[in-house]
């Protein structure tokens, strides 16, 4: 009988500490599956953030280091410049990347660092208990925007992916939503494109993941998926934000069939 589903070989057999319905466990699995499928465990280094995903190394069975809050892109830069043929992943949340680490992120992208950032956007600071993030939607209630996000006081939702897309050294940015099996498959496809782009030495890549946070959103996992589609995706439209892979110097032709395989 053909095996159609199994435990990813690059996930350690530890129970996820994430809340039920959280997007992190799905993304951890996707990253582990891709590295296994691409056969590059021995060439992969991941940077875990300060935030809910800080314990990523409890699950990923490849070399993983943890960064100070916001410094993932800088640390990934240091790693990649020493090990130029490795896949270097910086896995970051929206507080980490869009607030305290904005500078590191923009400049890593602008230098065209051959790294891939997995950007988990759940519109709040998850680990510290659901505070307002730069990505929090207008009128959205969090513990530090108890009456809803007020643009006069708190500014507007920050569109990091669109901002980074302006930079010429960026090869690939896509936004996906973990709100359905289809969205999950799309997320995996997008991350594969980004990993390939990095390994082809094309430029900086980032995949933004609209990711459910049922606990802090005070919703059930099902309601959270619905909320992503009906509310969050209106502010942050899923889709390819920028794709310069073919224009990039030294870029190899994109392997069309393989990419469309799933």
């Amino acid at each position: 009988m053909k095996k159609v589903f199994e435990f990813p070989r690059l996930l350690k057999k530890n129970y996820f500490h994430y809340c039920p319905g959280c997007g992190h466990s799905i993304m951890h699995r996707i990253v582990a599956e891709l590295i296994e499928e691409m056969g590059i465990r021995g060439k992969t280094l991941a940077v875990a953030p300060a935030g809910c995903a800080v314990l990523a190394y409890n699950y990923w069975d490849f070399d993983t280091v943890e960064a100070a809050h916001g410094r993932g892109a800088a640390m990934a830069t240091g790693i990649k410049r020493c090990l130029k043929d490795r896949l270097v992943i910086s896995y970051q949340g929206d507080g980490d990347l869009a607030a305290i680490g904005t500078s590191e992120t923009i400049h890593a992208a602008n230098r065209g660092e051959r790294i891939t950032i997995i950007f988990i956007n759940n519109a709040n600071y998850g680990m510290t208990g659901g505070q307002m993030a730069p990505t929090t939607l207008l009128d959205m209630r969090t513990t530090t925007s108890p009456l809803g996000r007020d643009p006069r006081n708190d500014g507007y939702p920050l569109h990091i992916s669109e901002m980074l897309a302006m930079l010429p050294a960026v090869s690939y940015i896509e936004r996906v939503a973990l709100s359905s099996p289809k969205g999950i498959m799309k997320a995996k496809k997008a991350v594969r494109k980004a990993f390939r782009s990095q390994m082809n030495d094309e430029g900086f890549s980032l995949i933004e993941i609209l990711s459910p946070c049922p606990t802090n959103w005070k919703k059930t996992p099902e309601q959270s998926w619905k909320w992503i589609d009906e509310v969050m995706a209106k502010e942050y439209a899923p889709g390819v934000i920028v794709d310069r892979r073919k224009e990039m110097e030294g870029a190899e032709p994109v392997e069309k069939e393989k990419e469309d395989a799933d």
Partner: protein
Amino acid sequence: MNKRLMRGNHVVAEAAIRAGCKCYFGYPITPQNEIGEYMAENLPKHKGRTFIQAESELAAINMALGAAITGARVMTSSSSPGISLKQEGISFMAGQEMPAVIVNMTRGGPGLGNIAPSQSDYFQATRGGGHGDYRTIVLGPNSLQELADLTFIAFDLADKYRNPVVILGDGLLGQMMEPVVFQDPIIESLPEKEWALTGAEGRPSRLSRSLILDTKEMEEHNWKLYRKYEVISKNEVRYEAVELEDAKMIMVAYGVAARIARGAIKRARREGIPIGLIRPITLWPFPMDFVRAAATNVSQFLVFEMNTGQMVEDVKLALEGRGNIHFYGRPGGAIPTPVELGWFISRHYYQSQKQGAMR
């Protein structure tokens, strides 16, 4: 081996390249800009080596940490305000036990201060500097030849103990020119570090972290670091002792302040004042035992620093009340002449003599 006339900032950069420094990450700040400029020009001439002008000191120190994790020799440099920004990263390096060399060409503070030479960052350097219970090895060169030699030693100590090492200079050391002879040959490759994260090819995966949520484990980690610091304190103390044999008074000074002290002592000796010098080279670990032992024969200690009194606390800790300490300081970038310091010496010598306080 050729003798070359060079500026201090160029010396530390050239010595780092020769010591096998693979990556340099820095952000411009006076008075150490020539380090980054020299690295930008010369580091990429060596295969596989990288210079990046980072977007901030925060980015620079974290790039350095990233490079250190792969097992590379790495250096970053800055001056006082920039070093404050790097402290978070240095704390992470200490927690993750990652080797790196950090150069501080200190300037006057607090705040933006000025760009004149100062020793105002002694506390910051020798007490860890960032958050958490940790130490960095701190080297305080007083000449450009010593700066060159200590840069090699800094990389070795960093690797040997898996700990960040601070080279604590100042604007004077960075800007002045002196003849220097460098060690040969240039180190192009180094043995692989068995703990480095390079990709888990044919081996179990590795991790590097400073987050340890379990209290028991975290306490053990802190004790483990402490034991390492104890070993460093025992094995790595360096100092220079000058004319202590017949000394009735001892001056303690480090870095370029010790150069001024040498001049003042020479003048005092000519006047017939029997004074010697203890110059700590490692500021942490401080030569506690040596300073304490010196108090067997001498009761009068003079401490001179280009600040309002920081190392003097270590001298007090070392002496444990065994001697009288007189402090002379010039903060904010002021540099006294040997003549000025000579007055301080003779005043205390004759006063102590009069009071019968001399041992």
